[in-house]
């Protein structure tokens, strides 16, 4: 009988001694080290200016750390050359506060865009787009244009677009920032559903205390660029 020894990389994201100083001299992250496990749902919390967005941006290589090491899904992000960033991005889905949809394209076209630009075949695109839209609860509005949708619905389209290529990790920077509390919790429920059914690791930056307290998920608390607390489960208290 063969015995297979598998070293399972449990940590999908590893951050080691990361500092980030912007060109204007502002230091946004001080000596950050942490691990995020595969399949987890993490809230990155902290007040305005605490460095949440900077942290997320470094994960998808929008910003480079000034020093330290960041490994995302086996890719050394800090050392990644510009021309190779796309390899990282294909492992990620990214959602923003302002949705960033294409206004002249329908819901379906917006989601399909993410697959078409990667050269995905038509049939497969159609199947996956419809599946993603079903998952976010928008299957009934695939022919609508973004301006015919509410804010919450637009954000669902953005989420569908982010997950349609089946990324390992979904990064969300204040996805509920423009939504009222009710819509906000709906969005987070959608993310939770994706986390549970697809096993996608979700990292969501937010300053919304109610959401964090209601969901009771893993939290990373930042304050003035420093890690204050990293807990498996918890609410938002400073």
């Amino acid at each position, binding site marked *: 009988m063969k015995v297979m020894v598998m070293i399972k990389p449990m940590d999908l994201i590893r951050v080691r001694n990361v500092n980030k100083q912007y060109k204007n001299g502002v230091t946004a992250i001080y000596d950050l080290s942490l691990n995020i496990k595969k399949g987890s749902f993490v809230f990155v919390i902290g007040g305005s200016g605490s460095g949440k967005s900077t942290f997320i941006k470094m994960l998808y290589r929008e910003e480079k750390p000034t020093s330290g090491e960041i490994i995302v899904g086996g890719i050394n992000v800090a050392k990644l050359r510009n021309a190779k960033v796309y390899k990282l991005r294909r492992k990620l889905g990214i959602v923003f506060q302002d949705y960033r949809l294409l206004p002249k394209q329908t819901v379906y076209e917006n989601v399909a865009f993410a697959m078409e630009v990667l050269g*995905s075949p038509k049939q497969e695109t159609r199947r996956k787009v419809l599946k993603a839209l079903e998952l976010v609860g928008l299957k009934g509005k695939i022919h609508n244009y973004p301006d015919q949708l509410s804010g919450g619905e637009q954000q669902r389209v953005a989420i569908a677009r982010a997950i349609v290529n089946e990324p390992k990790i979904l990064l969300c920077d204040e996805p509920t920032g423009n939504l009222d509390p009710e819509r906000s919790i709906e969005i987070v429920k959608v993310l939770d559903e994706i986390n549970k059914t697809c096993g996608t690791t979700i990292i969501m930056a937010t300053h919304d205390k109610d959401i964090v307290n209601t969901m009771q998920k893993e939290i990373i608390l930042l304050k003035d660029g420093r890690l204050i607390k990293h807990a498996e489960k918890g609410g938002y208290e400073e």
Partner: protein
Amino acid sequence: MKFLRLLKRSIREAFKSVFRNFSLSLASISCITITLIIVAASIIITFNLQNFTSEMEKDLTIVVFLDNNINEEEIDTLMTELRDMSNVESLTYQSKASIKEEMRKESEVFDEVMSTWSDEDNPLKDTFQIKVKDVEKISDTAESIEKMEEVSSVKYGEGMVDNLLLAFESIQKISYGVVIALVLVTVFLIINTIKLTIFSRKREISIMRLVGASNFMIKTPFIVEGMVLGMFGSIIPILIICFGYVALYDHTNGYLYSQMITLIEPEPFIYMISGIILVIGIIVGMVGSASAVRKYLKI
């Protein structure tokens, strides 16, 4: 397969955006059109000149002037000697008396002057006119003939051909200058067209980056757009070439200036020129769009 799908998408997007920014696209296309018409005209003229000069070279003749005191016997030996030369195709002898008669017939002035010449003081010379087999070696052949005894001097028409080529060369230089200036203006216009497309697609480009489209995938639609502009720009020049040249050829029966210059037959000449023009148009479009992409698509 994936590559083909991406290419198909790029082409579709390129056509879409040509029509979306139609007024600017039209400016680029018109500029390419004008440039290509001039390029086509230059190419057609150049090819015809080359054809013409090589036709003319075929008619080149070596004229051998003989010494004044030559006698009939010597002429006969010389004739066999010349005939035995490897590059000599054919030769004809013309005595100075018959040249005199010919010239007198040609013009009244000559007639008057030459009427007083007796055979002794006729300053003209007996000549051989020689056709050669290989025009390339005409100067060597002429040289060795000149070294022969009883040969006073040798002339062949190299001067005329050279002068013609020189004149054509200056015409060509001017057209090169015009074409280069026009190409520069065209490239500038294409850069601006593509720049506008890039700006109007900022959001799409940023989303493409987010979802992991490679630089190649992001660039290609813009490059293809430039090529499409070049392709559209070559349509009218190609039509002009095909119909215009055939019309010219038919109208002149293939000759210019009373059979002096023969034109190249339209087929397959016009297809070759059309192909060249299409390729030039596409390359100019590609150069413009590539530099716009390099400048405005920060990758």
